[in-house]
């Protein structure tokens, strides 16, 4: 059936657009952060240079097979999330391979890359990698709690575990968004979103002054290039996930770009003006406010 071939083609095209948007978005965010620090900052296209340079660096290190596979697992986590994420509502070609239960699958993919990275980074043998991995996994476990509660609340609200249905239910004006119909779940979800993006105050996995720079300490050249590619894709896809869940999805590419930018900006905005938590403070923070919000969201739905 040629339909599937065209769909695959559009999916790859979407991946390409998302990657580029991710890179440009990173450049814009760098620029904004620099402006807050009264600087001009690096050019918007700097992430492209970095990426080409990283792929072109030579490597001479071996740390075993798992070390190679770590970035690949991470990349497949990001791309996997993308594959099952409907991008544009109402368009058959831009909804990728979304299906009835894609919410559950995407939650799984979110954690998958993390685990693969943990296995690979542990192989590097650097003590800071190990500390970063243990910090990251314990923090992620607590992030998952409010996030999952928020998603369950939404699933109960809309009687569906499909993104397409959830987005469809939010159509018809700004007041139909989950943001207004289920504010508790939105609050819990957006607080969890801060944790997933890894900016301050939740950047303890890469904490530059404590454990520089955590799990990717040993990763370099092509490996780091793969990680950077994944980061660009993941940042957009994560934003799309939260856009679909809480902010009414997107009906055009322009809307998608605007909304993902604003959602990502929320985490950068918080990150610029806050220092970093210690790990036990971060864990207890997620177990307090966001978790309570998540539980309330389930109760009051």
């Amino acid at each position, binding site marked *: 059936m040629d339909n599937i071939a065209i769909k695959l083609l559009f999916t790859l095209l979407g991946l390409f657009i998302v990657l580029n948007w991710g890179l440009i978005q990173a450049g814009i965010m760098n620029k904004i952060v620099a402006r*807050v*620090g*009264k*600087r001009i900052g690096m050019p918007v296209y700097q992430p492209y240079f970095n990426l080409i340079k990283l792929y072109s660096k030579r490597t001479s290190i071996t740390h075993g097979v798992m070390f190679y596979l770590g970035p690949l697992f991470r990349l497949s986590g990001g791309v996997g999330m993308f594959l099952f994420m409907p991008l544009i509502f109402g368009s058959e070609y831009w909804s990728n391979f979304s299906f009835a239960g894609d919410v559950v699958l995407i939650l799984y993919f979110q954690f998958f890359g993390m685990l693969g990275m943990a296995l690979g980074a542990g192989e590097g043998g650097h*003590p*800071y990698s190990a*500390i970063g991995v243990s910090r990251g996994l314990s923090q992620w476990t607590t992030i998952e709690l409010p996030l999952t509660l928020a998603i369950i609340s939404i699933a109960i609200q809309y009687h569906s575990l499909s993104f397409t249905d959830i987005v469809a239910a939010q159509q018809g004006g700004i007041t139909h968004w989950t943001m207004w119909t289920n504010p508790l779940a939105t609050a819990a979800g957006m607080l969890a979103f801060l944790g997933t993006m890894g900016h*301050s*105050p939740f*950047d*303890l996995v890469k*904490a*530059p*002054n*404590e*454990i*520089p720079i955590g799990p990717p300490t040993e990763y370099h050249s092509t490996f780091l290039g793969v990680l950077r590619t994944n980061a660009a894709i993941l940042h957009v896809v994560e934003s799309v996930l939260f856009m679909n869940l809480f902010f009414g999805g997107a009906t055009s590419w322009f809307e998608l770009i605007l909304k993902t930018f604003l959602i990502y900006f929320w985490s950068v905005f918080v990150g*610029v*003006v*806050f*220092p*970093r*938590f*210690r*790990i036990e*403070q971060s864990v207890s923070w997620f177990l307090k406010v966001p978790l309570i919000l998540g539980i309330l969201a389930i109760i009051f739905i």
Partner: protein
Amino acid sequence: MKKNSKLIWTPDRSKFPEQNSDGSLDVDLASQKYVKVWQGPNHPGVTGNMSLELTICGDEIVQAKTHVGYLHRGFEKLIERRKFIQGFTTCIRMCVAEPDTNEYNFSRCVEELSGIEVPEMANWLRALALEMARLQMLLRIVPGQGNTTGLGLGVQWGVYLRDLILDRFEELTGGRVYHMYITPGGVRGLLPDGFKQRMEDALKKIDEFIVDITKLMYNNAVFKKRTVGVGYLDPAWIDKFGVVGPNARAAGFKRDVRKDYPYLIYDKLDYEPFTATDSDIYTRSLVRREDLRTTVELIRQIMAKMPKTGNIRAQTPNVLHWKIPKGETYVRCESSRGEYGYYMVTDGSEFPRRVNLRGPSYVHAVSLLEKLLVGANIADVSSMMVSLGTCPPEIER
């Protein structure tokens, strides 16, 4: 400030074994329970070029050893084979961050040993240079405390203002980092035209910065969470370890060389050093911010009270044949980190016999830090180092 004893968190240092007198520790590293981690010298969280050898158990530090010597240039040996005027250009490089205290101490030692009285105007200008040096150092380390916890924004603002002060230094002395302004026998020049106005402009920006950094850092809930009650320095340790300067002031001891042993013209200035009692990282940082305020105030006072013009150099012997009779002396001044002293011995020749530097970091960063880190969390290591005002070059010279 009220003392809230509930907030103070002192680690239970007794649950880990004490290190033996040869520095070894009775733990089994092969058991995988304890891990040895090196922080530095290539580590962004370590101030300057030094390293820490940490034995950790989980997130807690069991034993910490400071390793210094990465910046050792043998200054004290080099000065022994340089004439007094040559040694002067060498000694200022002992501490990169605040070279003027070195200039003053060395010049004062030489003047005292050869019996030279410095004219009044030179004393005012010396005090101005010392306060400006303190100001530029504090503009680095006050927001630097935020940087250790991941708040890099304050540093961006602070270093910009530091550049403004360095510009004033450039006008006054011609140098950006190394000034060589306070020479033995006086200072090198009077203030340039319009200096006071331009200095006042910079000081106004620093006043705004103090308000901004208070909002950004000191009132920040997460920053408070990270620093209040952490790194508690017992007041009983102040004399036991020889803690000086802001660290002692944060523990309730009013130790300020400018007040205690007035030098230059500091007895003509009106100010009061800020003291607090909580003695944790937050309080030490607060004391530094108040120091910044005081320094700005002092510079204003100096510029207002100083005479318009006057003689700035005393009569000195020919610098190429400057022989100083046998003698010894100790001169101290207040740097941004505390008491900064020079011990100089001369033997009647053209060369000094011995010059020894007493830097505050010598105790803060070696014996005190090693003790403070035991039982602390590995995430707080760099906060603690910065809050103690570590500056490695003055440890190893």
